[in-house]
């Protein structure tokens, strides 16, 4: 797997990649957050940009740009019972589509998808749509590990309410 050409990746592993993304979505929707965290590599980054393609996290404020330590803290916080913005919790459905393997980057598969995330909380239903990018590296236990996840919400520049559930 580590020497995949883009062509081989695109033809050979799409089903495995899609199944992995569905698995991640399922863990998020089921609030199995500790199991979800296991899908992230020790050096993983998790990014929800604010702004268009030109936004640069070195200079521009982002909605979220976590390393795995902070991602673990998010899980601790949500599971700890005192995060009022998740009391009650959001109920979500992650709909994953348009999955494709765009190439390879430093030994990782560059996977693109679109996601429609429906969130219901306190009787109010909201929709979030995003272009999503995963960098996936092979892993014996889970099939893949996530080295990077980037969630480009279409509404990331408008005033937002509560994005404390994990996307």
């Amino acid at each position, binding site marked *: 797997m580590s020497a995949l050409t883009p062509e081989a990746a695109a033809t050979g592993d799409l089903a495995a990649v899609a199944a992995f993304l569905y698995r991640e979505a399922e863990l998020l929707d089921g609030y199995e957050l500790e199991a979800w965290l296991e899908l992230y590599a020790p050096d993983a980054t998790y990014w929800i940009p*604010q702004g268009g393609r030109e936004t640069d996290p070195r200079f*521009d404020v982002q*909605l979220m740009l976590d390393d795995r330590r902070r991602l673990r803290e*998010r899980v601790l916080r949500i599971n700890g019972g005192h995060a009022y913005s998740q009391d009650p919790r959001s109920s979500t459905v992650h709909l994953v589509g348009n999955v494709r393997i765009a190439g390879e980057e430093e030994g990782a598969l560059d996977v693109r998808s679109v996601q429609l995330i429906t969130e219901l909380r306190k009787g109010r239903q909201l929709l979030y749509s995003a272009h999503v990018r995963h960098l996936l590296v092979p892993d014996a236990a889970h099939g893949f590990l996530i080295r990077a996840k980037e969630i480009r919400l279409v509404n990331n520049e408008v005033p*937002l309410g509560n*994005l404390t559930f994990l996307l």
Partner: protein
Amino acid sequence: MTAITDPADLITDDWRVHGSIYTSEAIFAAEQERIFRTSWLYVAHESELRNPGDYKTTYAGTQPVIVTRGADDGRLRVMLNRCRHRGAAVCQAESGSANFFRCPYHGWTYRNTGELRGITYDDAYSDLDREQLGLTQLPRVDVAHGFVFASFAQEGPSLQEHLGHALPYLELISRQGPEGIRLSAGSHRLEYEANWKLQVENTIDNYHFGFVHRSFLEVLADRVGEAPPIMQQILFNETYRTVDLGNGHSVHEFGDPRAGNNGAQLGDLPFNLIVFPNLCFVGAQVRHVLPKRAGHTEVRLYPMLHEGASDEYNTAILRTHEGFYGAAGMGGPDDVEVAFERVADGMRATEQEWLVMSRGAHREQPQPDGTIVGHSADEVPQRAFYRGWRRAMAIGGAA
């Protein structure tokens, strides 16, 4: 329900506050008239308008405005974002640089000084006084330590007089970085379904921190291996204090405000500051509170970067800020949930409408300079704000 006709009666001398100040559209309209149309209002930081021709769009109260730096004279102006012909907003972008604003509806064009430059097919007008048809300017614009303020009022206290005892704190903020500060990283934008004053009040409310932000304190405890001492400090550290600075302004000092940031998070100010009516400074951010309706508010949080510091340092300020603030932060959304929206939910119970805002009122210490000092977790900042509010809102002036 109590029948009250003068808003000044909504706050009693023993610090009971009537809930309608947060829910009544009539009060909201009166606030726009008596506070936002008379006071000095923050609109920009000079770093957002460095070069001639630069502009940004924002709000003065509920009114959309454009702040510009004159392309020819470098002067700062604040004008309504509204074409004088049929009222369309002439500028859509959040910020940029332009010599002209052209209304997309019928093509009327204005210089970035606001002056009307061109009317399309103007032979159809017989007696139009073009000099009177520039974009409507706010009559007074002034700058304090880089912070740009404007007022709808032709006359009244100067900006220096309005800021009063808050002015030295703005100076300290302006000197945070080796070469000052800049607001170049954009802003987090939040909206919530509750009154704007709840966000201002909550900016310095040390009493709430251990309750609303318990989950964040748990995260910090996990990070450093022991419970952070913030609640002990707030309750028992005598160098921590809240101060009513007069004119509705207030500050929370944690130790000497000139002595750096007291080991707090990266880039954090050594104090939190509220500048009446809707400008706040907390952590490493400028917080601009934008009233929309009695029950709807937008908030813009601008991280303050340090001019002259390394890119790495400023990037770390951004990451630290994002950990707590913004829609996905581990702190701010808990304020939105509890201190704003659950308050709005509770306020629907109107059978008994009075709130209690007297915490620590008996131990306030008036100072010779007119400021009032109180304990860290007392409601001194809330009372400071509502003293200003009550005076401005009273029918016929001073309450």
